């Protein structure tokens, strides 16, 4: 084989695989066919995570709070079923979030697991309820009891909470600590009859491409 032929052979041999690689239209595209939907448990760490408040935190915190509330004497050994009103949670962290979701989950956990040992008053519905009562009082709609008798229940306890945060960000990464505290306050005496907390700290570092 003469020199020219060798050059052609070698160069062509090297060029062909690379040339065909360039013909691959989805080169560099990860999962070109997509990724099938993955169903996960809400208390499970997903494959997309940040250092913020996530579903697994919500589940673990609210589960802990619901169990804790049920154990206190004011609920466990109450002579009459205590009536609880939920007050909005205060978010003092750096994470914008739907605050109601914490109390909603605690309430549903208590309602489903407390077997009627505690009842919640639906203050979110007050405007609707008052309008309905007014309609009954005016005789525009029927009433099964005397609409002029006040039957809206008063609260025995208020359940509320606070989310506090502490965050650090350096070249080493981001660190977020969130303190979840919830308390039950006696509506008559203002005494805090129960309080509990949960703490979650997360740290992470973005890829160097984002630093």
């Amino acid at each position, binding site marked *: 084989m*003469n*020199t*020219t032929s*060798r*050059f*052609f052979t*070698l*160069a*062509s041999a*090297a*060029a*062909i*695989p*690379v*040339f*065909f*690689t*360039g*013909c*691959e*239209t*989805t*080169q*560099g*595209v*990860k999962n070109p066919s997509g990724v099938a939907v993955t169903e996960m448990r809400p208390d499970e760490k997903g*494959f*997309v*995570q*940040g*250092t*913020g408040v996530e579903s697994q935190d919500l589940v673990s915190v609210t589960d802990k709070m619901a169990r804790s509330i049920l154990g206190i004497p004011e609920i466990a050994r109450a002579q009459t079923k205590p009536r609880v009103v939920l007050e909005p949670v*205060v*978010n*003092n*962290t*750096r*994470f*914008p*979030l739907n*605050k109601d979701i914490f109390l909603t989950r605690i309430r549903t956990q208590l309602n489903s697991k407390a077997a009627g040992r505690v009842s919640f008053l639906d203050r979110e519905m007050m405007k609707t309820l008052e309008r309905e009562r007014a309609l009954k009082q005016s005789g525009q709609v029927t009433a099964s009891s005397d609409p002029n008798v006040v039957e809206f229940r008063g609260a025995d306890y208020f359940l509320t909470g606070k989310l506090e*945060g502490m*965050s*650090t*960000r*350096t*070249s080493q990464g*981001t660190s977020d600590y969130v303190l979840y505290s919830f308390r039950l306050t006696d509506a008559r005496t203002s005494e805090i009859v129960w309080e509990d907390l949960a703490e979650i700290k997360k740290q*992470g*570092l*973005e*890829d*160097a*491409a*984002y*630093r």
Partner: protein
Amino acid sequence: MTDSRPAPSSRERRPSFVALLALSTAALLMFAGCETVPDRPKRPPVARTGDPIIDGNADLAAAPDKDRVLLEYRLGVTALRLGNFEVAKAKFDDAIARIGGLISGPADAAQRSRGLFTAEREKVFIGEPYERVMAFYYRGLLYWRDGQPDNARACFRSAQLLDSDAESDTYKSDYVLLDYLDGLASAKLAGDGSDALARAQKLTKTPLPPYDPEANVLCFVEFGRGPRKYAAGENGELLRFRTEPSRIRSATLTVGEQTVNFLPWDNLNFQAVTRGGRVMDHVLGNKAVFKKTTDTIGDVALVGAVVAANNIHQERRRVVTDEKGRRRIVTESDKSDGAETAAIALGIVGILSKLAAAATQTHADVRMWDNLPQALSFGALRLAPGDQAALLQFYDGNGQAVPDLARRFTLAVADSVKDTVVILSELKR
């Protein structure tokens, strides 16, 4: 002595030309094959309607996933300026969720973008810190507008935190407005905002107004064009910002007898250029060094290959005498196997080096949120509920009002417990 060998043909005597031809052909083929950014599947062209929201959503639907956050940033602020707050919220929420899931989210794309043969622009865009800060800032304004000052405060805190890893301590978390609004939200929530106010005051020489928890109209004014990114350096490996001072230097809002002055509290040009170097700059710098080195090696090797190829056949002339005693000059050609091997080896090394150099992607990612303002300002008013006639004016560097930017509008003050949030921009979209 008679030289009976036939003289080498002209074709054999000039292998360097043929070798170069072969090398060039191979190089062309290989460079074509080494295109690291494949053509994306063709998408149908987006039909323009003239409505920025519809067009923006169409662009978003047609865009690759890596550009999604960028387009959401742009569309979010456009929607905000057009008063389409639901669209703005949706866009910023999605963008912020993607930023929030970043640590374990699109890391593969990011990892690839650090590779020699993948451009930085191939990573999922989340923006430089000043861009991410603005996403949280705008979302914070929208939360406040919805009567959720605590979530707004959370956004301002996240935004300030994003700026806390600047290279120089002087420029860490130095957005005046973010600290000020953090404190104002606390004050509105019956908390203590004095620490945040003190922090904000430390960041500026301009005296900041004390918090007025009774002020029910919060005005956020912005003007000027924000920083523009460009790639500098021999191989475009340096991310730089083009910053032009805004023609507009201040603004006023007049409602009835009250006039609020808006001077710049924060300047995004300043924020963009005071971050210091990025880790990615170092990565790109290494890529540039690799590109330059391999390119030089390729040059040297190819030149060497040509020289060696020229020496494969060496011509030698000598005088010979035939049987009849006549003398004549004959030319002989000797083939050097060593030169041939060297030519081939150097040729391959040269091609591979040039190939590697050509395929190395050094350019800094210059995708940018291009409808950001330059200056941010704030003022609060106490106004009675109902519609109020308002006049917004912008002023140039000489303090002269710019007539074509003056705007009269009706300020609708909400009759509820939540604050009325007004977002006013010199930029239309």
